[in-house]
């Protein structure tokens, strides 16, 4: 009972004791010195774009292969591939326009 009494004393409800806020976890504090910190967008976004661009290049090669292998007699093969590159280039410019 003595222990319980001391515990009740610790959380005094009178409001006389000062309550300190929880400290910010080190991995959210943004301090790059010791712990983990969220990476900066200026470094992450170009890396993401590089991966996306690599996927796009592979995809474009596969599509071009299929068109030239199976649809090369079609008059639409080259114009459609050109359209694909123009549209993709425009979207990539849109994506990278705001990057620093």
């Amino acid at each position: 009972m003595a222990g319980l009494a001391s515990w009740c004393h610790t959380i005094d409800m009178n409001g006389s004791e000062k309550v300190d806020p929880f400290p910010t976890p080190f991995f959210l504090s943004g301090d790059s010195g010791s712990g983990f910190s969220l990476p900066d967008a200026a470094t992450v976004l170009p890396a993401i774009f590089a991966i996306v661009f690599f996927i796009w290049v592979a995809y474009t090669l596969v599509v071009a292969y299929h068109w030239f292998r199976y649809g090369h007699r079609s008059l639409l093969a080259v114009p459609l591939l050109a359209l694909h590159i123009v549209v993709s280039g425009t979207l990539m410019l849109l994506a990278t326009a705001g990057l620093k």
Partner: protein
Amino acid sequence: MEEFELEPGEHIITLVRQHVFVLFLKLVPFILLAAAPFIVAPLFSMFEGVSSVTGDMSSSFRFFIGVWWLFLWMGVFQIITKYFLTSWVITSHRIVDIYQKAFFRRKVSSFLLVRVQDVTTNVHGILATLIGYGDINVETAGSIEKFCMKGVRSPEYLRDLIMREVAVLHQDNDAVKTGV
């Protein structure tokens, strides 16, 4: 055509693809998905307070929209590619069924017109009736597999065309047998 060789005396009558409206129907989900970022954008504005951590929100959002639309465009172009690489080639002797299921998955099968037993068309729905597209099924003798193409333009015309060519082939065969 590299997937099949035309035999002597054989000529291509027509090349059949799905109706353009069917292609458009396949692209509708992509149009809706393209508009999705503008629905999600207000959610991004709720987190403007953390923009100091993630950098400038507007440029990041523009980046993700660009990448999102790029992937959607790749999906759209894949569907367009499959649309143009899938076809039926009707020749004077046979029908060649070319089906591009996906990249690196292509099936080419052909069946002789003299073996055609039944040609069935199926036009189902208001849009299909008004716009004029439907399914066509061809059954051949001795084959369990049905040859089907969905959403072709003017299936009735194709059915009549196939049956006419089949009749011509049978007449030629009968003439050869009787020696006329």
